[in-house]
């Protein structure tokens, strides 16, 4: 019988060095020659929820409170909660396993709807400014923050997790990005192409976990 296996929409075109299967998802843990950054990591297997409710601000998904204003995000215990508008919030489980979808009718599991990429390390924001006029390094905002807008002409949710510590001009830092799953190949191609001049390399989940740990500490 054919093997029951999930497929990530993201394909970097290089074979991963180390892979593990997690609830049918093959997860690349590391790649050969990941380099010194910047890195792009496929997180499409990480659970994402959409939560919509007239009183979304009063809900506590995964035990966390929802940020008060649209555009604000909070990252705690590996869970990133982004307030999208008056009634809507996106919840990304960046850490290990996600709990079951809560029983509240406002939740939808949208893991499958999008690709989920992390782009971080030196020049990560310089790569972004080749593909989008969104201000990922906005000095008036405190990371993490959410931007909903076009990235390489495709509507995306982008969360800047880390701005360049210095003054925002070295382009270091990083962000996670989701866009419609169907665009996976086009988006990855565009990002790798834009990042080539900075030495952008695909990296495994471990690299992302290290960054996440550093952000949380």
């Amino acid at each position, binding site marked *: 019988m054919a*093997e*029951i296996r*999930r497929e990530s929409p993201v394909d970097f075109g290089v074979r991963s060095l180390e892979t593990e299967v997690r609830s049918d998802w093959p997860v690349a843990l590391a790649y050969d020659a990941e380099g010194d950054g910047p890195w792009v990591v496929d997180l499409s297997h990480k659970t994402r929820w959409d939560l919509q409710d007239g009183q979304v601000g009063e809900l506590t998904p995964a035990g966390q409170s929802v940020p008060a204003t649209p555009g604000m995000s909070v990252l705690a215990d590996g869970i990133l909660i982004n307030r999208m508008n008056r009634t809507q919030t996106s919840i990304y489980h960046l850490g290990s396993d996600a709990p079951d979808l809560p029983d509240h009718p406002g939740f939808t599991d949208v893991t499958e*709807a999008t690709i989920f990429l992390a782009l971080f390390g030196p020049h990560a924001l310089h790569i972004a400014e080749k593909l989008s*006029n969104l201000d990922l390094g906005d000095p008036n905002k405190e990371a993490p923050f959410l931007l909903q807008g076009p990235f390489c002409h495709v509507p995306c949710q982008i969360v800047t997790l880390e701005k360049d510590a210095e003054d925002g001009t070295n382009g270091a830092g990083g962000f996670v990005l989701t866009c419609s799953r169907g665009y996976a*190949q086009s988006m990855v191609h565009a990002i790798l192409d834009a990042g080539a001049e900075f030495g952008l390399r695909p990296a495994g989940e471990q690299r992302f976990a290290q960054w996440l740990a550093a952000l949380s500490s």
Partner: protein
Amino acid sequence: MNRLNQLPTLRIDPAEKRTLSYRGKSLPGVAGDTVATALFANGVRIFARSLKYHRPRGLYSLDGECANTMMDVDSIPNVRTENTLLKNGMVVKEQNVKGSAEFDWMGFIDKFDWMMPAGFYYHTMHKPAAVWPHAMKQIRKAAGLGEISPDYVMRGRFDELFLKADVTVVGGGAAGMRAALAAAEGGLRVVLLEARPHLGGCFDYRVSDNGDGTPLYQRARELAEQVAATTNIRVFTHAPLVGTYSNNLITAHQVGSDSDSFTERYIEIRSESIVVATGCIERPLLFDNNERPGVMQVGCAHRLARTYGILPGKQAVFAVGHDLGLEAAIDLFDLGLKIGCVADIREDGQNPDLLMALADRAIPVLKGWVAAKAHGKTVTKVTLTTVEGTVKRDFDCDLLVASAGLTPVTGPFIMAQAKMGYDNHTGYFLPTELPERMFPAGRLTGVGDPRAIEASGRLAGLQAAAACGVSLNGELDAAKAATAALPGPERGCKLVTAPVKGRKSFICFDEDATIKSVKQAIDKGFDVPELVKRFAGVGLGPGQGGIPGHNLPLFVAKYTASSATPKPTTLRPPLVPTFIATYAGAHHHMFKRTPLHKSQKAAGGVFRNIGVWKRARYFSDDFDCREEILNVRGNVGMLDGSTLGKFRIHGPDALKALQRVYVSDMSKVKEGRIKYSAMCNDDGCVIDDGVVVKRGENDYYFTTSTGRAGATVEWIRYHTRFDGWDFHLVNLTDAMGVINLSGPNARKVLAKVTDADLSSEAFPFSGYREITVGGSIPARAMRLGFVGELSYELHVAASYMQAVWDLLEEAGAEFGIRNFGVEAQNVLRMEKCHIILGQESEQRTNLLDVGLGFLWDRTKSACKTVGAVALRQAEKDPNRFKLVGIRMEDDDRPARDGALIVDTKVRGYVATMRKSFTTGEAVGMALVEKPLSDIGTRLEIFEDECNGVRLYARVVKMPFYDPNGERMKA
């Protein structure tokens, strides 16, 4: 030629050699050279021939303001060689010549200028009209710039950059650098754009003292170091401004160097405030043969020597109207240039120190004198005259440095819609009212004193920072005081033209427009600059107003004896020529692929763009898809339908929203059943159809057509925007893949991979079940009949799609299951007369026209259903189209999709038609006027290129296959 290799001002590296190929010869150059300076260093004086008269042209400004030195470089025509850095191996050719630039067989045309007065195209050659095509052909051969080969492919890497800045400074001279440094003090994000490959502006090549004992070039380098050390200033050199727009949007392009990853890139900057420190170019001096090779502007001669180490001539005459001309004469004399005489247009007002220095060097200075005529193909002699024209004197020379004075580069202001006015003191056209949050700095404000230039830069930088909300009152006042204490704007030279008739005095080089042609235009009544510009072609060339921009309005005002102040002409982006390839940038093609893309491709899928998606349309090179179709009819096939729009709608008011947009009564949707319905627009025209499933209380799942998926959320929210309803939409289009399993054996195949009861009793036609496939994969299953056979549509999480597909393929192997594509589906559903919106409908087609009126529930007017009012009206309209089934009289000649149905006029069109493999008949659907819709009506069909022969068809009953639907309900 020996270069002046030891100058501290050089921007070349004499040690690093480059070569270029010109006229079959390899010529040496050095790193830092432009193509033009390398050619000049090799003795090339005539770079090109002019557009109309084939006059020889040479180096004039060195900043690319005119087409004089445009050449064909590596097969790209009209390259501004003055602005193009030399790269090894460049192949350079002259343009618009028969022979060579040196000896051009078309050069005789210059003698016939009298035949070509201003506007001669307009009033000759149109009588008789038949002459024009021939004349045009000859003119095209004789006139113009470079030529491009139609099959030329642009090489290089083009990129784009979208920057956010608090302050953008345009111009990297001393003022611009000071502005950037001042603006950056408070930590703002600052972008500095410089058109030349290096910072420094008018300080960069000058050795005179800045007033504090530092040579200007050294001061410029100090500032550049400070800028480089300031991390919140991002510097883009070789990046000329291309456009300024409202809301402080700036576009520019940057030319890449050898070490850059791009050939040229587009830069778009949205900034809070802008400092314009673009400086000045020179106002051309008007006299006879003022554009001869050997005539050049002050900055050109000075920079050739100081920046590129090339002495611009041996024996020179200067005819200038500004102290910079005197400064250049002194410096160039010291570098070894012989100077016969310096004619200064001004009677007085010169800097006495400069006059003293000239006297020290025994260089004669003629005040109130000006050049009247240059002689020779390249300059051999010049006639000078007093500005009144009373006395003339000839001087032998091979270089005439000529300039009437300065003119500010105000393009950024003009493009930002600033009102421009004539300033009597400087003689400049300057903004009379500044656009919001845009600040001028440096030489373009009229100041010439180096300290004043720097101070004005600092002031503008602080003002720009203040406009971003940085509070720095004290500093701003100090900067204002500092500026006020320094010399203000200098008085400019006002001479418009030398005292000549002007037949060969060129006001615009690019279009070969002379003073005489401007006079002719004015005499014909085109008496304002904007009209002269168009009629006589003054400033319509590639350089826009760079050469004539300042002189034209001045001359028009003089010649019309106008007492009003001169009015400048306008400018538009792109301010400098920009490759289309640069605008295209990286041009990533963004499209969607389904979760099965790879396996569909491996299975031989031939893909087509359908909206934002790539879909497999065929699975063989038989584009009639015979095998694919017959396999579905007789056996079982699988289609990837993942592009279907899929949505969840939930919340207390979800049903109200559905009632608003769907024409049916959605309160009748039952759990476990699918409801087919349609959406109309406010004109009753049908825009979408799909199915709705109720999955729980206030919780629905619905599908839309592929093309409408992107606009569905927008549509529903738009039509409920005043209602304040509490409902929520989730776009699951990409989250779920869709497999359409169709054919008489579909149930047997599906039964092998699921434990669910698939019997018609347990899972009837129009049923909806949530089943498990392959033991663990959840699937939403619908029994639909789009292709007219027993069919299951499985909606599966995208990541499991390939696994489910593989399971079904394995299970179906024993039946000979195979793929079918979009075209096969198109024929299958056409045989059943199931419509596809956009194919059996167009913009004006309403719900009733296509026979879907049965979907519309008239009893729910309280829901204010979109389209209902218009449908009530349309119902009474006898002049609508109607969708009918048609069959060709000749079954071997189906009409093409879109063929017209005609009698004395167009009566309708064929929507879809194919030769049906199932029935052997050429059948299809057509939209026809109601009177033609009765069964049996004979229709006359017109196709393109049918040479008067018509095709004939008859209206027949729909559908053509399985009219009672027994197969799909099986």
